[in-house]
C-alpha cells in the first residue's frame, strides 16, 4: 500500500496514545475508601478473564481508531493487488501493445482500450512511484525503448498512439529483456498493456521458453499485465482480397473479393443485418447494401466498373462506424498485374522439370507466367526484385553465405520461398527450420499424408470447399522437418512434411516441404493437382508484393528503411509524420510505386489467450494479471481512505459497545420503596 502523503505516517506512534493515556489514568485515577472489599474482590475474581479481555479489546479498538485516522490523513492508495507494496521500483517499463485491435472503443465515451489503459497506467505509475522511478516506454510497433520524464508523458508521445499494425508480444518482451540486461535497471516493474489477442501473443512460439529463462535470471523484475480482452460484440470488419483490373473490348472493371465479418457471441446466431458498404475508387464512391447473416458475408468477385483508360489507381472499402474503427476500412491498389515470376534452384532436372511445368502453366489466362530454373552455382543470379517465388531444391546456404541473406530479404520483402530437401540433408537451419532424415516407405506400401491443414495455407480447400487430394498422394520417401514452425502436413507418426516458418506475418512465407516431385519419390508430379495448387498459391502469395502497386500490411518496415520517401495518396487524408506512415493503414505513394497498407489479418481474429495460457507463458515469473474494462472507469489505484474511515467508525462503535455499562437495576430513592425491579438483596430479604 502506498500513500499520497506518506509523511503523515510519521504520526503513527500517536496510535499508542490510548495505551499511554490508559496507563496514566491507571495511576492517576481517583481513590475511594471502600469497606465492602469482600464483594469487590469477589466481583473481580468473577470477571477476571472477561474484564481483562474486554479491556484489551477496548484499548486495541482505540489504537485502531487512532491509526485509522492517521491512515486517512495519509491518503492511502489501494494497489496491493498490483503488488505495489514495497516502495517505488527503480525502473518502470511500459510495454505497449499498439496493435489495431487495441483501438476498440467504448462507443459511449470514445475511449479506446489503448487510451484507457494508458490513462490508468499513467495515473497508477504516478501515484505509486511519485516520480521516483525511471519510466521507459517500449511500443509494439517500433520495439524501441523511449525514456520518459514522467508517467503522464505516456499519453503525449507519438510512440503511444494507435496504429494499424500487429503486435509481436514476444518481440516486445525480448526488447524489454534486452533493455533491462543492458541498462541494469535495478528493481523493475514491467507493465504490459494489451488486449491479449492470440495472434499478437503467439503463445505457441518457441521464443517464450527463452524469454522465461531470460527473465528468471533477473532479480527484482515484476510483471503487471493490464489487459482488456473484452470483445466488441456485433462489430463489423471488412477485408478485401484479389483486387484485379479486368478489361473487355469496350469496358473495364475492378473485381475483388470482399469479406465482411461480424463478431458474435460464441454459440449465438444473431439476426441478419443489412450493412451499407461504400466502395471508393480513385475518389469515386459507390454504395452497396450487403446482408450479413451470421458472422460473415462474402462478396465473391464483386465488380466495380471503371473507366477503360484507368489502368492503375487506389481505393478503399468502408463500413459504417462502430466500436472498432480500424477494421471498418480496407485499402487497395490496382495496376497492370506483374509477371508471376518464379525461380527454381536445383541441379536435378528430374525435380526441376515438373516444378517448372507447374509454375509456367497459366492458372489465370490474363496474367503472364515466367519460370526459370537455375543451378545451385547460379543461384546468385536470381532476379530478386522481380521474383515472386523461389523454389530451393538444394542444400540450405550456411548463415554466413550471402545467399542466405538474400533469401531472408526475399521473404522479408513479402515474397515466398519453398525449400525442397536435398539428397544429403545437413544440419544447417533457415528460418528456424532444418531438414531431418530421409524416410523411405516400403515399396509395396507407399506412405501417405495423414493430416494436412485445409482451412488456410497452401493446402487449403478450394474456393468451392472441395479438399485437395493430398491424402491420395503416394510417397515413396520423404524428408522430415524439425524446428519451430507451423505444421501444414504430417505423415504417419507425426512426421512433418510441410511446415511454414514462424515469423512476421507481414513478411512472405518460407515453406519447407519434405517431398520431391520425381516419380521415385512421390506421385506429386504424376497426380499433379496438389503440386499445381500448392505452387500456384505460393506464387500468388509471393506476387502480392510484386509490381508498382502492391498490397501490404502496416508495420515499421512496410515502407523500407526511409519512410520519408513516401506520402499519402489521398490528399485529404490526415497528415502524419513520416516515421509513423508505415504504421497506419492507407495508400502511400513514392514515385510510380503505390502501396496499400492495411492491418494484418491476425488483427481481425478475435481469439484471445486465456488466463491459463498466461500462467503458462509467465510460469515461474512474478506476475499479476489485471483485467480492465472499457466501461470500468475506476483507476488502478484508488484512494481507499473511505475504507479506513469505515474501519475507524467500526472501531469507535465497537469500543463504545464494549464500554457500554451493563444494564443496571433501578435503585430506589433513599427511604422510598422501589417500584422497579427489586434489587437482589431486597429479593433475598
Amino acid at each position, binding site marked *: 500500500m502506498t500513500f499520497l502523503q506518506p509523511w503523515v505516517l510519521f504520526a503513527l506512534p500517536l496510535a499508542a496514545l490510548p495505551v499511554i493515556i490508559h496507563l496514566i489514568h491507571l495511576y492517576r485515577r481517583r481513590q475511594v*475508601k471502600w469497606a465492602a472489599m469482600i464483594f469487590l474482590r469477589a466481583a473481580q475474581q468473577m470477571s477476571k478473564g472477561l474484564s481483562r479481555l474486554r479491556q484489551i479489546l477496548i484499548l486495541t479498538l482505540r489504537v485502531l481508531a487512532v491509526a485509522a485516522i492517521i491512515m486517512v490523513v495519509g491518503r492511502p492508495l489501494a494497489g496491493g493487488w498490483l503488488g505495489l507494496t514495497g516502495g517505488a521500483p527503480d525502473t518502470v517499463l511500459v510495454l505497449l501493445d499498439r496493435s489495431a485491435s487495441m483501438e476498440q472503443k467504448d462507443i459511449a465515451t470514445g475511449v479506446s482500450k489503448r487510451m484507457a489503459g494508458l490513462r490508468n497506467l499513467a495515473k497508477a505509475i504516478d501515484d505509486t512511484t511519485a516520480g521516483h522511478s525511471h519510466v521507459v516506454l517500449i511500443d509494439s510497433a517500433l520495439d524501441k525503448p523511449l525514456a520518459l520524464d514522467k508517467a503522464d508523458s505516456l499519453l503525449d508521445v507519438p510512440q503511444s498512439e494507435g496504429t494499424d499494425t500487429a503486435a509481436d508480444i514476444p518481440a516486445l518482451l525480448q526488447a524489454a529483456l534486452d533493455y533491462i540486461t543492458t541498462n541494469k535497471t535495478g528493481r523493475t516493474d514491467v507493465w504490459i498493456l494489451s488486449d491479449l489477442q492470440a495472434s499478437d501473443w503467439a503463445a505457441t512460439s518457441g521464443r517464450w521458453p527463452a524469454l522465461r529463462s531470460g527473465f528468471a535470471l533477473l532479480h527484482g523484475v515484476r510483471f503487471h499485465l493490464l489487459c482488456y480482452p473484452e470483445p466488441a460484440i456485433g462489430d463489423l470488419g471488412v477485408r478485401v482480397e484479389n483486387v484485379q483490373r479486368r478489361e473487355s473490348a469496350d469496358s473495364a472493371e475492378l473485381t475483388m473479393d470482399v469479406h465482411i465479418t461480424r463478431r458474435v457471441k460464441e454459440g449465438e446466431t444473431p439476426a441478419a443485418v443489412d450493412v451499407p458498404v461504400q466502395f471508393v475508387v480513385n475518389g469515386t464512391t459507390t454504395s452497396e447494401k450487403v446482408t450479413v447473416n451470421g458472422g460473415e458475408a462474402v462478396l465473391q468477385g464483386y465488380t466495380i466498373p471503371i473507366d477503360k483508360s484507368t489502368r492503375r489507381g487506389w481505393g478503399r472499402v468502408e463500413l459504417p462506424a462502430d466500436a472498432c474503427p480500424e477494421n471498418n476500412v480496407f485499402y487497395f491498389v490496382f495496376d497492370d498485374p506483374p509477371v508471376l515470376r518464379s525461380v527454381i534452384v536445383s541441379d536435378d532436372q528430374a525435380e526441376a522439370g515438373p516444378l517448372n511445368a507447374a509454375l509456367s502453366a497459366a492458372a489465370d489466362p490474363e496474367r503472364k507466367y515466367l519460370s526459370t530454373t537455375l543451378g545451385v552455382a547460379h543461384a546468385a543470379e536470381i532476379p530478386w526484385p522481380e521474383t515472386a517465388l523461389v523454389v530451393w531444391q538444394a542444400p540450405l546456404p550456411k548463415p554466413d553465405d550471402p545467399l542466405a541473406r538474400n533469401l531472408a530479404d526475399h521473404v522479408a520483402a513479402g515474397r515466398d520461398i519453398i525449400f525442397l530437401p536435398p539428397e544429403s540433408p545437413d544440419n544447417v537451419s533457415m528460418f528456424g527450420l532444418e531438414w531431418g532424415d530421409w524416410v523411405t516407405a516400403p515399396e509395396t506400401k507407399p506412405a501417405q499424408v495423414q493430416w494436412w491443414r485445409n482451412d488456410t495455407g497452401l493446402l487449403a480447400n478450394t474456393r468451392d470447399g472441395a479438399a485437395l487430394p493430398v491424402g491420395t498422394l503416394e510417397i515413396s520417401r520423404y524428408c522430415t522437418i524439425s524446428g519451430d514452425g507451423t505444421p501444414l502436413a504430417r505423415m504417419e507418426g507425426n512426421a512433418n512434411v510441410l511446415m511454414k516458418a514462424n515469423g512476421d506475418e507481414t513478411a512472405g512465407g518460407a515453406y519447407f516441404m519434405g517431398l520431391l516431385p520425381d516419380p521415385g519419390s512421390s506421385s506429386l508430379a504424376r497426380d499433379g493437382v496438389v503440386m499445381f495448387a500448392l505452387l500456384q498459391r505460393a506464387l500468388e502469395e509471393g506476387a502480392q508484393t510484386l509490381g508498382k502497386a502492391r498490397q501490404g500490411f502496416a508495420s515499421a518496415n512496410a515502407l523500407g528503411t526511409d519512410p520519408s520517401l513516401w506520402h499519402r495518396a489521398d490528399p485529404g487524408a490526415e497528415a502524419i509524420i513520416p516515421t509513423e506512415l508505415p504504421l497506419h493503414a492507407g495508400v502511400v505513394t513514392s514515385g510510380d510505386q503505390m502501396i496499400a497498407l492495411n492491418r494484418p489479418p491476425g488483427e481481425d481474429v478475435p481469439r484471445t489467450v486465456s488466463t491459463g495460457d498466461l500462467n503458462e507463458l509467465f510460469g515461474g515469473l512474478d506476475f499479476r494479471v489485471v483485467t480492465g474494462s472499457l466501461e470500468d472507469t475506476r483507476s488502478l489505484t484508488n484512494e481507499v481512505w473511505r475504507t479506513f474511515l469505515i474501519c475507524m467508525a467500526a472501531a469507535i462503535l465497537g469500543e463504545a459497545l464494549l464500554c457500554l455499562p451493563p444494564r443496571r437495576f433501578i435503585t430506589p430513592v433513599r427511604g422510598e420503596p422501589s417500584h422497579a425491579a427489586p434489587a*437482589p438483596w431486597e429479593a433475598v430479604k
Partner: protein
Amino acid sequence: MAENKRYFLEPAVLGRLLALPLHARQAMLGSVSGKHRSPVRGSSLEFAQYRKYVPGDDTRRLDWRTWGRSDRFYIKQFEADTNLRLCLLMDTSGSMDFGPDGTTRFDYARKLAGALGYFAAEQGDAVGLWSMADKPVEIPAKRGPGHLGAVLDKLADLKPLGGTTLVKALHEAAERIRQRALVVIFSDFFVPPEELKSAFQHLRFRKHDVAAFHLLDQRELDFDFDRPARFLDMEGGDAIQADPSLIARNYREAVRKYMVELDDAVRTTGVDYQRVKLHESYEAALVRFLLARIQNHPGR
C-alpha cells in the same frame, strides 16, 4: 464532659422509645429479680405448672383445692422473674468507619448500642460492652447506673480501626460470656457467611439470645460508580483498581450471593437478624427490633 462524650444518646428518641420493653426471646438466668422469664420456678404471679408433692417441698405451696378434688398432693409452681444480661458486641474494624456523608457505620452502631444499653439499664438489666478489634475491650455486664455510665463512656471512646477479627471475637465472646445473655452484635458482617454461621452457632450453643444488627450503606449495595477508581481497603488490605462499569454486574451478583448465604446462616442459627441501611433512622430500626421482640416474647 460526660454529656459531650455521650452525644450519641438522643434524649428525645430515648424518651419516645422508653415505653417499649427490651425482652429476651428466651429465659434468662439473672442474679436478681427482674422483668424476664427465668428457667427456674419462682414466686411471681404467673402460674407455670403443677407437679406432685415430694417430701421436703414447702407445704405452703400445696394446692388444697386440687387435693380436695383428687385426694392427691400437688405443688403449684409459678414463673420466676429475673433480670437480663445485655452484652453489646461492637465491631470496631476499619470498615465500620464507612458511611453516608457526615456519618459512619460505627456512629450508627454506637447510637443503637447506647440506646439499647440505656433501655436495659432502665429496666434494671445488666449491661456489658465488648469490642471486636485488635485490642479488644471487655466490660462484663453489670447492673447499676454507674456501670451504664462506664459502658457509655467506653462506647464513646471506641474508634473503628484496623482489620476485622469479627469471627474470632465472636467465638471468644461465646466462651467468655458465661451466663445466658442477650448478645447484640453491631457489625457490617463483611466476612464469609459460613464463618459467621459457625460463630453464631457457638453463641447459640452457649444459650445466648443472639441479635445481629447488619449495618449496610446503600452505596455498598448499589456500587453505583461511574468512573474507574482505585478502591482503598479501609481495613488495611490491598487496594483494587476497578472499572465499575465492567464489574458492577458481578459485584451485585456477589452481594446477592452473600445475602443468600447470610440469610441461611441466621435462619438456621436462630439469630435475631436486623438488616439496617444507614440512610434510615436508627429510631425506626430500634422500634422494629423492640416490637419484634415483644411479638416473639414467650409471655409470663
